[in-house]
C-alpha cells in the first residue's frame, strides 16, 4: 500500500484530527484573506455585518464559525453554538476528509450530496469563490487545481505577494489566539 493510498484511507480518529486541522487553517485563512486580499473583501462586501458563516461536520464533528464585522473583515467565533446565517454542512466526517484531502473538489462534493448549504444559496456561491480564491493563493497550483473547478488566472508574482500576506496574517492569528 503506497503512502498516498494509506493517507486516503485513514482511520476515523486520524481523519478527525486532519479535518480539525484543516478547518482551523481554512477558518483562519478566510480571516486572513478578509484582512489582506482586495478580491475577497469585494466578495464579502455583499454580506451584512453580523452575518455568521459556519462550516461543520454533523452531528458534532470539527467546525468553525466566523462573523462578519462592520469593517468588512471576518473574525473567528471560537465557541459558537447557534444557527449560522450561512452554513456549509458535511454529512459525514469521511466526506469532509475527501474534500480537505483534495480527493474531491468542493463543487464536486456539493454535486455528490456530500454536503449541503443551509442559508442563502447566492451567499454560498460567494463564499465558495472566497474559498477558491484563498486556496488558489496559498496552495501550490497542482493541489489547488484539484480543489477548484477552474484554476484562476493569477500572475505568479501576485500569487506570491498575496499568498505571503495571507500566510503572514494566518501565522499571526494562530500565535495571537484569534484575537481581533
Amino acid at each position, binding site marked *: 500500500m503506497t503512502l498516498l493510498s494509506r493517507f486516503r484511507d485513514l482511520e476515523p480518529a486520524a481523519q478527525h484530527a486532519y479535518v480539525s486541522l484543516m478547518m482551523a487553517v481554512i477558518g483562519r485563512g478566510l480571516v486572513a484573506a478578509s484582512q489582506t486580499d482586495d478580491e475577497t473583501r469585494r466578495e464579502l462586501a*455583499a454580506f451584512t455585518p453580523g452575518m455568521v458563516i459556519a462550516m461543520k461536520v454533523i452531528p458534532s464533528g470539527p467546525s468553525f464559525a466566523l462573523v462578519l464585522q462592520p469593517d468588512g473583515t471576518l473574525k473567528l467565533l471560537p465557541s459558537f453554538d447557534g444557527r449560522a446565517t450561512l452554513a456549509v*454542512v458535511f454529512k459525514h466526517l469521511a466526506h469532509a476528509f475527501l474534500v480537505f484531502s483534495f480527493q474531491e473538489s468542493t*463543487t*464536486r462534493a*456539493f*454535486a*455528490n*450530496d*456530500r454536503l*449541503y*448549504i*443551509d*442559508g*442563502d*444559496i*447566492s451567499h*454560498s*456561491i*460567494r463564499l*465558495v469563490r472566497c474559498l477558491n480564491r484563498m486556496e488558489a493563493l496559498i496552495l501550490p497550483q497542482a493541489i489547488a487545481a484539484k480543489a*477548484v*473547478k*477552474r484554476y*484562476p488566472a493569477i500572475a505568479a508574482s501576485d500569487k506570491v505577494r498575496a499568498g505571503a500576506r495571507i500566510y503572514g496574517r494566518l501565522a499571526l492569528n494562530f500565535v495571537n489566539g484569534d484575537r481581533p
Partner: protein
Amino acid sequence: MSRDFYEFFCPVKVIAGERALEHIPFELGLLGAARPMILTDKGVIAAGLLAHVQKALASSGVAIGAVFDEVPQDSSLATVRAAAARYREAGCDAILAVGGGSVIDTSKGVNILVSDAGDVAEGGGDLLRYAGAHHLKKPLRPLFVVPTTAGTGSEVTLVAIISDETRGVKVPFTSTFLMPNAAVLDPRMTQTLPAHLTAMTAMDAMTHAMEAYTCLAANPLSDAYATSAIQKISNHLLPVLDDLKSPLGRLELAQASTMAGIAFSNSMVGLVHALGHTLGSMTHLPHGVCMNLFLPYVLEYNLPVASDRIGELLLPLAGPDIYASTPKGRRGTETITQLRRLRDTLNARCKLPRTIQETGKLDRSALRTLAERALDDGPVAFNPREADLSDMIGIVERAWG
C-alpha cells in the same frame, strides 16, 4: 454515464392519463384523508379547470373542505399564512394544489404550517423557522398536486420558493418532506393553455432536461428521465400546437414536464437557470421565456467541456436518422443547431422570443448588471464549466441577438 457516487430520490406517486383526476378520492382515502382544501388561483378558476376537479370529487365520499383561490403570481408568506388559516378554519385534512409553480410552492408552505411541523403544535406560526435546508423532521399532511401547465416540474421537487414581502427577498425551503404525495397529470387540465404558453412552458421543461443531463450532478437515473423528456417534447410540442386539444399530445407534454422535473431535482441545473432567474427578476419576463432565450448560448459556452454529453442529446432531440448521419465529433454543435431550428419555428408560430433584444424588456446597457447578478445565482455551482464575469458577459452579449 458512470458516476463514482450519486443520490436519486423521487417518492412522488405519478397518476397520469385519461380520467386521472377521478383517482384522487381513492388515493386520498389510502392516506386517511377525506376533506381536502383546494389551493388554486383566479386564472385556473376563470379557465373553468376547477370544475373538472370538483366533478371528479363529487359523489366520491371526499368533501372539499375549502377552496382558497387567492394565490398570486409570486407566492408570498402572507398568502401562505392566509391559506393555512383557511385550512384550519374549515377543518381540512389534506391539500390539493391545482395550478402552476406559484400555487404548488404555496401549497408546500401551507403544508408546513398546517402540519405538526408547523405552528399548530408549537403555537408559533413562524414559517421562517423552517427556511433553509432540511429543517423539517417528519412527514407533513397529504399533498396532491394537479399541474395546469407543463413546464415547472414543481410537482416532483423538494423545494418551495416563497417571497418574504417585508424584506423583499425570496426564501427557499428545502426538505424531502415537502415533496407531494402524488402528482396527478390529467390532459384535461392543460388543454386550455394557448399556443404561446404551451410553447413557453415546454421550453422550460426542455431546459430542465438539457441542463439536468449536462450539469455536474447528472447521474444514470436522472439521465433516463432527462432524455425521455427531451424526446417527448421534441416529438409532441409542434403537433400539439397544431391541435391544442389533443389529449394524447397534452399528456405527453405533461409527462415530459414531470420527467424533466424528476431529472433536474436530482441533478440540478446550471447557467441557463442562473441567467434566467436574474433576467426574470430584472424584467418580470416569464421563466419559460428566459429559459428559451439562454439555452443555446449556454450550451455553446459549455461545449468545450461537455461536447460529448451535449452531442448525446441529438438522439432524443432530432431522432435516430440525424443522429446516425452526424459524425460523433459534430453532434454537440448539431444539437445546438437543431435546438435553434426549433426555437425559430416556435418564434414563427407563436412569437416566442429567441433573443433578449426580441423581448424588448431590457436595455442593452443593463447586460453587464445581468451578468454580474447571475454570477451569484445558485445554479452557477452545478454548471459543468466555470464562469467568471467576462464569461457571463460573453454569454449575455451573444444572447442579446
